[in-house]
C-alpha cells in the first residue's frame, strides 16, 4: 500500500486551503500531519481520499482516488473523520461492524471473516467488555475508541485518521499510538494531531503545515526544529529527550 500526493491544492469557497502539497507514504510507514488549527490538515486528508475535489496528482495504491468507486476506495483506505458521529445510539458492536460495509457485510449478518475483523478491532481498542453498550452511554474517550475500532475493522491497508487522540487521556493516547504502529506492520498510516510529542514519538515522518502549505517535512527531529515550529505555530518550541522518550515544550 502506498499513498502519493503530488502538488495537491484544494480550493474551498474561493479560498485555497491546501497549497501545492506533495507527500509519499510507503508501506510500513506512519506519517503525522501537524500544524495549527486551520492549517489545511483535514482538507489534505479528505483530498487524499477523493472526498474533496483537488488539483494535482494523487495515487492511492496506484489509482487516482477521484476515479475509484466508494467501495474500491474503502477497501484501500479507512478514514476516521475529526468529529466522528453516531447519529443513532446503536451498540458499540454494530457501529464497529459498519466498518465491514465495503466487504459486503451488514452488522447483523456477519460472516466469520467479518466477525473476526470486528472482534480484533474491539480487542485492539479495549472495547470487548462494552461491545453491547449503546453509543450514547459511553464517555468521550470510549466513543473515540469505538470510532477508531470501526476504522480498524475496515481492514484497509491505509489508515487516514483525523485527530484520533483528541479528547483521550495520556494513557489512551499512547495506546492509540501503539495501535498505529501495529497497523504499520502490514499497512500504512496518515494521521493528524496537535500532540507534537506523540507525533514525534510514533511517526516515521512529519508533515508540518501552516496556511495550507508545508512548512517542513521529514523525520521528526529534522522537521520539528525550533525554527520550523516557530514558522508553523508562531511560538518557540522544542523537542527534548527525557530518559529515552520525547517531550515537547512550548515557550
Amino acid at each position, binding site marked *: 500500500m502506498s499513498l502519493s500526493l503530488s502538488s495537491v491544492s484544494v480550493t474551498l469557497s474561493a479560498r485555497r486551503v491546501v497549497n501545492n502539497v506533495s507527500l509519499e507514504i510507503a508501506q510500513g510507514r506512519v506519517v503525522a500531519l501537524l500544524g495549527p488549527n486551520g492549517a489545511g490538515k483535514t482538507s489534505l486528508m*479528505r483530498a487524499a*481520499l477523493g*472526498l474533496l475535489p483537488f488539483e494535482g496528482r494523487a495515487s492511492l495504491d496506484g489509482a487516482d482516488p477521484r476515479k475509484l*468507486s*466508494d*467501495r474500491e*476506495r*474503502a*477497501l484501500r483506505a*479507512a*478514514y*476516521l*473523520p475529526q468529529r*466522528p*458521529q*453516531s*447519529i*443513532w*445510539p*446503536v*451498540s458499540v458492536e*454494530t*457501529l464497529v461492524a*459498519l*466498518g465491514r*460495509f*465495503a466487504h459486503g457485510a*451488514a*452488522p*447483523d449478518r456477519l460472516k466469520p471473516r467479518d466477525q473476526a475483523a470486528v472482534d480484533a478491532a474491539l480487542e485492539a481498542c479495549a472495547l470487548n467488555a462494552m461491545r453491547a453498550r*449503546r453509543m450514547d452511554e459511553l464517555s468521550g474517550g470510549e466513543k473515540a475508541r469505538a470510532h477508531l475500532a*470501526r476504522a480498524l475493522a*475496515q481492514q484497509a491497508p491505509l489508515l487516514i485518521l483525523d485527530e484520533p487522540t483528541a479528547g483521550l487521556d495520556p494513557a489512551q493516547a499512547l495506546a492509540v499510538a501503539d495501535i498505529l504502529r501495529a497497523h504499520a506492520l502490514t499497512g500504512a498510516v496518515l494521521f493528524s494531531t496537535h500532540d507534537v510529542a506523540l507525533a514525534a514519538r510514533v511517526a516515521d515522518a512529519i508533515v508540518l503545515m501552516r496556511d495550507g502549505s508545508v512548512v517542513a517535512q521529514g523525520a521528526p527531529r529534522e522537521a520539528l526544529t525550533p525554527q520550523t515550529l516557530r514558522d508553523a505555530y508562531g511560538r518557540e518550541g522544542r523537542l527534548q529527550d527525557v530518559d529515552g522518550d520525547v517531550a515537547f515544550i512550548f515557550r
Partner: protein
Amino acid sequence: MSGSVRASFALVVFSVAALTAALWLGPVALDPFAQDAATRTIVWEIRFPRALTAWIVGAALGLSGAALQGLLRNPLADSGVLGLSGFAALGAVIAFAFGFAFLAPLMAIAFAGIAALVVTTLGWRARGPASLALIGVGLSSFAGGLIALALNLAPNPGALADLVNWTLGSVEGRSLDEAMLAGALLVAGAVLILFAARGLQALTLGEEAAAAIGANLGHTRALVILGAAACTGGATAVGGIIGFVGVAAPHLVRAIAGHDPARLLIPSALAGGALLVCADIVVRLLPTDTELKLGVAAALIGGPVFALIAARLASRGGDS
C-alpha cells in the same frame, strides 16, 4: 431472536388482531363470520376494504417515515412533516379538479417525488432536526396554498366540497380496488427502500464517514426518494393527507427494535399499519353526528406526540 424480528412478529399479530377487530366493531358490532347477506355485505364489502386501506396507508406512511428519518438522520422526518403528503395531495387535487381523476395516483406520486427531491436537497445539510422540520413546514404551507389555488381555479366547482373533504384524510368508503392500488405502490416503494437499507445503516456514521466506508450515498438517496414518493403518493391518492403516522411509528418501535435504521423499516411499516387501523376504529366508534376524519384524528393525536419528541430532542441538545 433480535429485537427487530421480535418487534415485527409482535406487530404482525397486533395488525391481524386490529384488522379482525375492525371487521367486528363499528356503530353496530357485527359477527364477521355471520351468514346473513346484510352482515356479510357490511363486513366484507364495506368494513374489510376500509380496514385494509387504513392498514396499507399506515404501513406506507410508517415505512416512508422510517426511511426518510434514516436518510436525513432526523427523528422528526416523515412524509407529512416534510411536505411529501401535501404535495402528493396537490398532484391528486389537480388531477381531480381538472377532470383527469384517473391520473390522480400518478400525479400524487410525481408530486410527492418532487417534494422529496426538494426537501432532501435542502435538508441534506440541515444543521438540526428543527431546521429540517422548518423546511418541511414551508413546503407543506406552500402545498396547502397551491391546493387552495387549484380548488379556486377548478373548472368544476360542484366537486369542491368533496375535494376539500378528501384532503382532510379518510379511508371511509374505500373499495378493494383502491386498497389494491395503494398496496401495489406500497410493495414497489418497499422494494426500493429495502434496497437502500444498507446505505441508511451506513449513514448512522454521518455523511462523510458513510461515504468513506464505501456507501454510495447518491444511490441511497435516489432509492429512498423514489420509494417514499411511491409509498406516500399511493397512500395520499387513496387516503388523502394523514400526518404524523410516519413520525410516531418509528418512534414507538425503537424501544423494542433498536435504533439501527435498516432494522427499523419493517417494524415501522407494521406499526404504522396497526396504528392507523386502530385510529380508524376509534373514529368509527366516536358517537359524533358527522364521522371524524381519520386525517383529523391522526393530527389530533400525532401533533402532540410530534411536539413531545421535538421537545425531548431539544432538551438533549439535539438541535445544536
